[in-house]
């Protein structure tokens, strides 16, 4: 902390560093608000159809691989912690720690995608991908198809966000390793963290909604 090779870069439109930091944080939270509403549209659809077709949703949900989904939930939650620690490391200018924690987070994100990939592959094999080849033994195959449509849609959009996150984290890790871009300037890492935690929150909701409908029956 004592050594400060670079002072934070202040863009010309700002008066001081606090102003710049506040602006960035508010901006990021606004972006997260847009993301909430973006996913919100799909959550609304989910709610409406689950209310209308409770049976089909229960049946569809039985066909999802709960241990894959559950493991993934744990993976993302842990990666959130490593991300929080990484942000903390950045705020203390501990570069080596920051780099390794970012890499750890990225690996966990990648692990999530790998597990999700196996899950998808399994589902494609089982003909659970909506479309002409969709087939399910259920009382209401058409409504179950709706369930799986929603499943693919929401997990797909979520996986896209995870993938973007992993790429961003890797870029940040590289910058932290090769340059001192984040020394005394941890706002970007902070924002990256916010994004990653948001992605985690989405899964916190998706997991019970998609995997745990009427598991007991």
């Amino acid at each position, binding site marked *: 902390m004592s050594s400060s090779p670079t002072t934070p870069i202040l863009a010309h439109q700002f008066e001081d560093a606090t102003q710049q930091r506040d602006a960035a944080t508010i901006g990021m939270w606004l972006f997260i608000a847009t993301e909430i509403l973006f996913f919100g549209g799909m959550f609304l659809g989910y709610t409406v159809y689950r209310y209308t*077709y409770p*049976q089909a949703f229960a049946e569809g949900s039985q066909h999802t691989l709960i241990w894959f989904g559950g493991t993934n939930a744990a993976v993302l939650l842990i990666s959130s912690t490593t991300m929080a620690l990484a942000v903390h490391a950045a705020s203390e200018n501990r570069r080596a720690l920051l780099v390794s924690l970012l890499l750890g987070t990225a690996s966990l994100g990648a692990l999530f995608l790998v597990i999700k990939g196996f899950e998808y592959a399994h589902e494609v094999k089982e003909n659970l991908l909506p479309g002409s080849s969709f087939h399910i033994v259920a*009382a*209401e195959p*058409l409504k179950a198809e709706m369930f799986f449509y929603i499943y693919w849609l929401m997990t797909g959009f979520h996986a896209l966000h995870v993938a973007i996150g992993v790429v961003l984290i890797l870029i940040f890790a590289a910058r932290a390793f090769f340059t001192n871009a984040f020394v005394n300037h941890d706002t970007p890492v902070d924002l990256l963290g916010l994004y990653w935690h948001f992605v985690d929150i989405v899964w916190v909701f998706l997991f019970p909604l998609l995997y745990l409908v009427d598991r007991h029956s």
Partner: protein
Amino acid sequence: MRQLFSFIFPDQASNLAPSVDAIFFALVVLCSVITLLVFVVALFFCVRFRRGSKVDRTPPKGGTLRFEIAWTLIPFFVFCGLFFWAADVYFAMSRPPGGATEIHVVGKQWMWKIQHPDGRREINELHVPVGRPVQLIMTSEDVIHDFFVPAFRAKQDVVPGRYTTEWFTPTKPGRYHLFCSQYCGTNHSTMVGWVYVMEPAEHARWLNQVAVSESLVAEGERHFHSRGCSGCHAPNSQIHAPLLEGIYGKPVPLSDGTIVIADEQYLRDSILLPNKQVAAGYEPIMPTFQGRISEEEVNAIVAYLKHLTDSERSQQ
């Protein structure tokens, strides 16, 4: 004068028209008054306080609060009044009276197919007698359409996958436009037709003009047998399926514990999406008929199932 009026104002040919028009005229008066008020006041200020005119410009004393309160509260109360009036009429417009003649309407790109209870069919034309309430039970084979008769002030979207209803009592004989007013593709603007409102006698004559072989109920009964419904739903069937006599309008317990009233929508869904709501105590083995049977056949079967109830009631 009259002619000018009819040039700018549509016919009033149903029971709904006067009540809708009453609100309309009230609003026209109210809004004209407000518009005039705003315009006159603004113009007056513009002229009087134009630059260079010799008037007193000392800033007015006192706060603005009382004005603000006035022009918040006055609109508020006016709006509440308007809302209740219009909502009351709307409520009546959405709830058909008992005993209305039920006519089935199927919209498809780009025509209206109409089935009368006596089995008579029409395309893009609807003949109804004056003075009797008519209820349209409508659905669509493809996209959303909308059954709009300006002279009746009646309009309702026709949505695929479900029944919507619209009702009116024609009050004036004549020929009135029927428009599709929900955009539905290339020939949306030619998905139009005529509604003929006839004196009862004339209507009876029209009914007798062409003999129809079978009523809608009879047609439905025929489909009920030919489509194999009776194979399961007959009293002597080997398969455990509910008897459908008297089901219409009754509460049906479902397997998920809820209870629904068996209305048209329920009957329709039971045929097309049988597993949407499974009757309690039965296996969900009924096959879906979606895609295998046309909307008109469904309508006929629904009419038949409803008739089963009516005849049962009349026997009691």
